[in-house]
């Protein structure tokens, strides 16, 4: 189905099932331990052997020698795979470094060997016996040190008007630099894969967000035809972008299974994950804003520097600044330098998450300079069109409504605009806010829908559920379209034998995948109508029946003994060129700072979101509170600590890489504005999974500033960065 004109009224608008806060249909499986995760497929591949990945002990250089002798002789060892015996391998275009390194080493903990043994413990023990000598080479590890060698990215700068002139002339100016650190996805379930060969066919049970990318990249890397690779990943214990790509677990499981001649299971250990896989790269961001005394922005510049391995991409931390605020003169662009660190790549809300942490603090600082309320300053600079192209409106933009409703609900009026004034016992108390913004991305997505003689509707699509609720909203979509209850819908996901979907990433999953299911259901409705010999436009699907004129046929009967099946997908025209599609929100945070120690704790959080139709308010809320929690982590504690001498992330476990725990997260509230966006898809929905993260960190930072009067422009905001500026204890 081609979607190239705005949606009109369709069966989804009935909202009998869609839009309801339904419990997750996969919930019982998960809470009873019956949902099978990648490492837990105990019965699919008999006689499985266990692989343990060895990562490089240096960041750059060469393997001088590798002594496998002792390991080969160790009890239980079945095979050892290295670059030397792995056979010819390609590198897919979505991987920057090769997944099996050697003799050349491109980053710390790049996989250099897989030891396969009868048991997990034997594999791990034998891996400890492998002796590797390296010849290290000098590498570039420090972004600040290579910043001046950075280049503009291929998208180029977005230039509107004359920034330099307007900024120089602006009566009120801000010129600041902000930094964000490298961050780890740190999802619960590590990367894991079981691989089994049957002749020249390969099946992998894995944990991956993008099934078709995985099939494409695994087959390309192994230099084999795509149709000989099957990928199965129905349950995923979190990904946050860390599982968008083929990674070492899957490739090495496949190679190990080929070498061992039997199925092989590989899980990455937590310490390995932090340096072996991808991470959100650090940024240095330079922001300049000029305004007139009434708070009208006249000039805005946002430049961001990040680094990556050769072939890796930049962190697009400035992209939101092209669209978020008005301002006649603009200079916006990303720059990239070469670093020999592990690969930087997408982590939840890539670009915006880091960019908004800087931009929204800059806006707070600017409001302070102007003597304006930060909410009003943002409202003053709202724009309903793309600032670079006034003929390109936003499809929906209810940012001002989010801001106003949030301010009212949160009690923003009680905030003391003068920082460092409010005290509650040992705590300094502050309120902060920031805007949330994330683009809505359209990408084609297909599904197959079957109706059987019991009246059961089964949806099959390679869409994934990374804990987000995909199963449930897809079931709701099919139920709404076919006029049945949720109990009559079965959803099967994460299998490359199903039609190719949007997958999970970039908060594009919900809208696109359900739109694909919508398209397939439209086709199934047509098939039902045709079978009954009625005009599909006249057929009503409700209460498990098809009603056409005065005929009323139960769906089960219409399906007949053979059942009916339809496959289709959504494809988009150029509506996203004519309109800018984005999601909006406002974050409000109350934070307290221990006046003596500088410890920061968050007391209250509110997010108001406008993100199209909310398909399931319960799972959407869970997405947003999870994202808010992640934003607190980014603001206050998350940082991959870099050893700049040797080029690796030192705190590579969950004791060293701190993410928020329950005690860090107090009351959280989420409000969704009532919105439908007919430009986005027939579902009129957009994404929320990443919106909830964008801006949170800045709201926390702004609250800390309001509490203390101090600005920390270097995330995470840890007490060591401002302790000496706090007032004396006494």
């Amino acid at each position, binding site marked *: 189905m081609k979607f190239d004109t705005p949606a009109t009224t369709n069966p989804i608008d009935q909202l009998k099932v869609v839009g309801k806060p339904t419990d997750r249909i996969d919930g019982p499986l998960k809470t009873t331990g019956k949902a099978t995760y990648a490492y837990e497929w105990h019965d699919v591949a008999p006689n499985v052997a266990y692989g343990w990945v060895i990562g490089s*002990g*240096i960041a750059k250089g060469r393997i001088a020698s590798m002594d496998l002798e002792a390991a080969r002789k160790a*009890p239980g060892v079945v095979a050892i795979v290295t670059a030397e015996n792995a056979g010819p391998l390609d590198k897919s275009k979505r991987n920057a470094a090769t997944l099996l390194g050697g003799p050349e080493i491109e980053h710390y903990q790049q996989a250099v060997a897989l030891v396969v043994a009868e048991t997990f*413990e034997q594999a*791990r*023990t034998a891996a*400890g016996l492998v002796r590797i000598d390296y010849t290290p080479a000098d590498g570039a590890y420090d972004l600040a040190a290579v910043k001046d060698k950075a280049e503009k990215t291929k998208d180029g700068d977005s230039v509107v008007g004359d920034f330099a002139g307007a900024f120089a002339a602006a009566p009120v100016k801000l010129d600041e630099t902000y930094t964000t650190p490298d961050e780890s996805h740190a999802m619960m379930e590590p990367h894991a894969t079981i691989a089994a060969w049957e002749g020249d066919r390969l099946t992998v049970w894995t944990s991956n967000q993008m099934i078709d990318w995985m099939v494409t990249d695994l087959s390309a890397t192994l230099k084999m035809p795509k149709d000989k690779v099957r990928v199965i990943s129905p349950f995923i214990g979190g990904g946050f972008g860390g599982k968008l790509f083929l990674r070492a677990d899957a490739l090495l499981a496949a190679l190990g299974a080929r070498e061992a001649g039997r199925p092989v299971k590989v899980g990455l250990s937590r*310490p390995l994950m932090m340096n072996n896989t991808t991470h959100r790269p650090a940024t240095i961001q330079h922001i300049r804003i000029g305004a007139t005394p009434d708070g009208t922005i006249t000039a805005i510049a946002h430049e961001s520097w990040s680094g990556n391995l050769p072939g890796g991409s930049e962190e697009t931390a400035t992209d939101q600044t092209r669209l978020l605020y008005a301002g006649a003169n603009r200079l916006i662009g990303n720059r990239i330098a070469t670093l020999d660190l592990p690969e930087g790549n997408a982590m939840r809300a890539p670009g915006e998450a880091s960019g908004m942490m800087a931009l929204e603090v800059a806006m707070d600082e600017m409001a302070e300079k102007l003597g304006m309320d930060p909410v009003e300053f943002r409202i003053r600079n709202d724009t309903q069109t793309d600032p670079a192209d006034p003929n390109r409106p936003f499809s929906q933009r209810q940012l001002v409504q989010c801001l106003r409703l949030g301010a009212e609900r949160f009690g923003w009026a009680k905030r003391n605009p003068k920082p460092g004034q409010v005290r509650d016992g*040992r705590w300094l108390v502050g309120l902060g806010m920031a805007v949330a913004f994330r683009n809505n991305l359209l990408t084609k997505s297909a599904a197959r829908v079957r109706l059987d003689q019991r009246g059961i509707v089964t949806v099959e699509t390679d869409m994934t559920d990374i804990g987000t609720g995909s199963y449930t909203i897809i079931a709701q979509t099919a139920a709404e379209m076919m006029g049945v209850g949720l109990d009559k819908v079965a959803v099967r996901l994460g299998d490359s034998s199903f039609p190719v979907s949007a997958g999970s990433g970039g908060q594009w999953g919900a809208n696109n995948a359900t739109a694909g299911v919508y398209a397939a259901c439209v086709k199934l409705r047509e098939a039902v109508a045709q079978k009954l010999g009625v005009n599909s436009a006249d057929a009503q699907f409700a209460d498990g029946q098809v009603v056409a004129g005065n005929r009323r046929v139960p769906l089960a009967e219409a399906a007949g003994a053979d059942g009916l099946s339809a496959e289709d997908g959504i494809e988009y025209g150029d509506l996203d060129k004519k309109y800018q599609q984005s999601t909006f929100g406002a974050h409000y945070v109350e934070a307290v700072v*221990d*006046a*003596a*120690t*500088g*410890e920061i*704790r968050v007391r209250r959080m509110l997010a108001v979101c406008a993100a199209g139709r909310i398909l399931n308010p319960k799972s959407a809320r869970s997405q947003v509170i999870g994202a808010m929690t992640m934003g607190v982590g980014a603001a*206050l*504690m998350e940082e991959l*600590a*870099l*050893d700049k*001498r*040797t080029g690796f992330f*030192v*705190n*590579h*476990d969950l*004791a*060293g890489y*701190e993410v*928020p*725990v*329950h*005690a*860090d997260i107090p009351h959280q509230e989420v409000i969704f504005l009532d919105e439908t966006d007919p430009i986005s898809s027939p579902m009129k929905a957009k994404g929320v999974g990443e919106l909830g993260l964008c801006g949170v960190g800045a709201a926390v930072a702004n609250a800390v500033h309001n509490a203390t009067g101090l600005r920390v422009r270097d995330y*995470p905001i*840890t*007490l*060591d960065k401002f*302790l*000496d500026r*706090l007032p004396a*204890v*006494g």
Partner: protein
Amino acid sequence: MRPFTYERADSPAAAAAAVERRPGAKFIAGGTNLLDLMKLEIETPAHLIDVNGLKLDTVEATPDGGLRIGALVRNTALAADPRVRRDYGVLSRALLAGASGQLRNKATTAGNLLQRTRCPYFYDTAQPCNKRQPGSGCAAIGGYSRQLAVVGSSDACIATHPSDMAVAMRALDATVETVRADGTTRSIPIAEFHRLPGDTPHIETALMPGELITAVTLPKPVGGTHVYRKVRDRASYAFALVSVAAVVQRDGGGRVALGGVAHKPWRVEAAEAEMPRGAKAVTAGLLADAKPTHDNAFKLTLVERTLASVLAEAKG
């Protein structure tokens, strides 16, 4: 993890003898630290002697009015003991500030004292570390050292001891009771139990090979207001940046021990004379010989500010 053999001991002296007999043998109590280290092959014992069945899991009053805490008393049980809560509040609070509920249910008194450093380089076997591999060097010096020691460190090692419990025990003048393979026992004052790194950071305590901890005794209660303040980046489940264990008497005198600053719980008795004069004077004495790194110099300020806050809290 290297393969190992395992046995259960039936008496403390037999346990000690079993370890002495087998080079590379170790005791295992709750296992919450040892097993993690074995998985990473930082510890590679060939033999484990399980001491959980030794019935060293009671807290008893001593004749001189103190408490004798069995080596196997779990951190949860010790924190909840009514006598500890009443008379040694700083200990109960320190315990509850550590780890998580699940870990405290497993963790034992002896195991807690003997838990190893959280220096991140210690955990990466590709990195040089004098504590893990004597003579290999110290990757933390000149590296990422935000969490590491500011005082009592050496050119060989700047690690800290991560325990909260031990800091309170140091403030309370606890004594570690042990037994050796030949059945002889001794009492080691906590001040002498943990060692500074010097040239031998791999030797962390005064224990001899095979020596088993049987109990920790606390002298009779000293009264005063008991405070334990642990400063950390997140609200729970994190090791201390710095911590302060304080017992403050009505006249402003008392005791102070610090966590998160040194290779052992840090206490300088002479500095306590300054307590009535306030945090600055006490800190000056406590950290007189501090040699912080660029990354952790903030701990000096943090100790003083935290102590000031603790003293203010104790005053009420």
